[in-house]
């Protein structure tokens, strides 16, 4: 195990931020920590890194107990903070060099690593720029470069794509996949389910400081009853027809909201066909029709009864 967390409890006064949190993160995986804002993701990361004190529990990284002065462990960790953590007075190159220099003493090696990090985040043309001259997306990329330049074995990224444009977000996600391909274990926290779903090989969903579900995205989706969500654009459907639709085999729920018919079906293969047959049989006119597989938001919704982004 790269990270082993057992029964971690962290309280802020009356508030229980982490409630007996247990995690095991294996070498080489991209581990996603998903949860709404305030679910305890950042607190968990800060406790794991020994930045925050905790009330109870055990944290091991690389098989050793994690403490603030466990420098041999820290040497192999790269951290990318939720907020951009760079010095405004240093250029892009100097920022990366400064943070890399806290890990790597050899100047020549450091120079090579900084150049590689610059190339990795595609900031070579901005090396002499000060952070205030960079756009939000470029700043985020600099923030990542500062955390990964020393080639750590374990990289923890705490919501690295918050307030980033789609183009920069894609670059960041691609970069994370490349880092993983190069051998780094990734811990990725986010409240963007699409990112976690796209990127992570294993996911833990957190809420109120607790793990409410964990597994691969397929395993998580298999936990819920929802198999498919079919949306039909229709103007006229009466209450009687809605009742009949709900009674069809495999249909879990039917809603008619804003001229849209949202049909949730259970697991099965012919749900869309069944719905189409029903619409034709009852001569219900419709526009577009599309089907979606369940998302992690549906998983979260079914387990907690609320949306992931509430």
């Amino acid at each position, binding site marked *: 195990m790269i990270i082993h967390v057992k029964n971690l409890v962290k309280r*802020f006064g009356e508030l229980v931020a982490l409630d007996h949190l247990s995690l095991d993160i294996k070498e080489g995986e991209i581990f996603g920590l998903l949860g709404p804002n305030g679910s305890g993701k950042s607190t968990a990361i*800060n406790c794991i*890194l*020994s*930045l*925050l*004190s905790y009330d109870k529990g055990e944290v091991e990284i690389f098989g050793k107990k994690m*403490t*603030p*002065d466990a*420098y*041999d462990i*820290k*040497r192999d*960790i790269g*951290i990318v*903070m*939720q*907020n*951009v*953590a*760079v*010095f405004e*007075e*240093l250029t892009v190159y*100097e920022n990366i*060099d*400064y*943070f890399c*220099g*806290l*890990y790597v*003493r050899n100047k020549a090696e450091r120079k090579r690593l900084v150049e590689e990090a610059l190339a990795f985040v595609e900031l070579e043309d901005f090396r002499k720029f000060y952070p205030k001259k960079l756009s939000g997306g470029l700043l985020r990329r600099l923030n990542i470069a*500062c*955390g990964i330049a020393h080639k750590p074995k374990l990289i923890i990224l705490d919501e690295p794509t918050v307030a980033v444009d789609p183009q920069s977000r894609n670059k960041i996600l691609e970069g994370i996949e490349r880092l993983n391909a190069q051998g780094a274990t990734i811990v990725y926290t986010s409240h963007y389910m699409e990112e976690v779903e796209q990127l992570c090989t294993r996911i833990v969903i957190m809420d109120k400081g607790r793990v409410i579900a964990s597994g691969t995205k397929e395993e998580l989706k298999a936990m819920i009853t929802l198999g498919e969500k079919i949306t039909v654009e229709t103007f006229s459907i009466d209450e009687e027809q809605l009742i009949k639709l709900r009674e069809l085999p495999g249909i879990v729920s039917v809603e008619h909201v804003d001229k849209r018919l949202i049909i949730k079906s259970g697991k099965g293969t012919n749900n869309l066909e069944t719905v189409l047959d029903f619409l034709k049989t009852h001569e219900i006119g419709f526009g577009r029709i599309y089907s979606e597989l369940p998302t992690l938001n549906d998983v979260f919704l079914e387990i907690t009864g609320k949306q992931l982004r509430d």
Partner: protein
Amino acid sequence: MFTHIFIYRFKCLIRDKQLVFWTLLFPILLGTFFYMAFSNLNNEETFQPIDAAVVNDSAYQHDTQFKSVMENVSKGKDRLFHLKVASNREEAEKWLKKDKIKGFFTSGEVIKLTVKDTGISQSIMKSFADQYRTSSSMVTSIVKENPKALQNGLLNDLGNHRTYVKEVTGGSAEPNNVLNYFYSLIAMACLYGSFWGMKEVTDIQADITDRAARVNMAPVHKLKAFLAGSCAALVILFVEILILLAYLRFGLNISFGNRAGFVVLTALVGSVLGVSFGAFISALVKKGEGLKIALLMVATMAGSFLSGMMFMNMKYLIAAYVPPLAWLNPVNLLTDAFYALYYYDSLHRYALNLGMMFLFIIFFCTGTYLIVRRRKYASI
């Protein structure tokens, strides 16, 4: 590692234009304003000969004694009067009317003084006339009643003034009222260095900035990083204070006495005091950077005021009525150390000031260490 952190902290600090302004340019500007405002202060307190006149009529011509006295007090470097001789009373009155003279003397049976206004110059002229009259009358009486007294050295005795109070000066330097303003300005600049110290603590405490959290995650001892950064801050502040000293000494001709080595030592101790003070306050106050800056600014300005930077007598009032406050005010300790170096031959008072500053530095450093050494935070 130490060198790596030192170099980058140095770059971070020296590129902070706001801090460089407040810690270097602002004291230089303020010093220049002080110089422009106070340069005549000492000159005004130096005695200037009084513009006076005497009417050169026949009585004056015949009164050889008075004539001789007037000539004697109106010559030389320390003369009392800048004497003009009017050919007649009308001419003297004309001068008086046009403010060319403060008053004029007329000889006769009694020496007369004519003035237009009242003031210090007029009072001095009156005292002079009174004293002449008294001495002249005394000599005349003694000569009439006991002529032998002249042979026993009466005139010499009358010319001698004997004082029964022994004057002891603290040092060989000239007392100078203006210097205290400049010394407290240097002290203020040293304490403004607290902003450098504050920045160092801010960038090392993970519960204050994300940069600090990132540094805390590196395999570097936190206090080592803090020490390297503080050294960078100290070097910058010390160089700034030396630039300020050089500007005051060679640009504005402000005297610091003859002990340059001790002046530089005081600047160094003042710089350490400033940086450690800022680090301590920053570590102690858990609120935002704005509040910390406000606290440091208020503490420095209040200290400067109490050490006489805005009102010179304040320093003496504090020393007279609340002496512990003088010893507990770092700005005053620095100001007084500079003044003790300038004025006193003995280093006793200087050493006391320096000793107190060392105590403050030890207190601030220990306090900062105890707060900053915490390795985990309760909240971030």
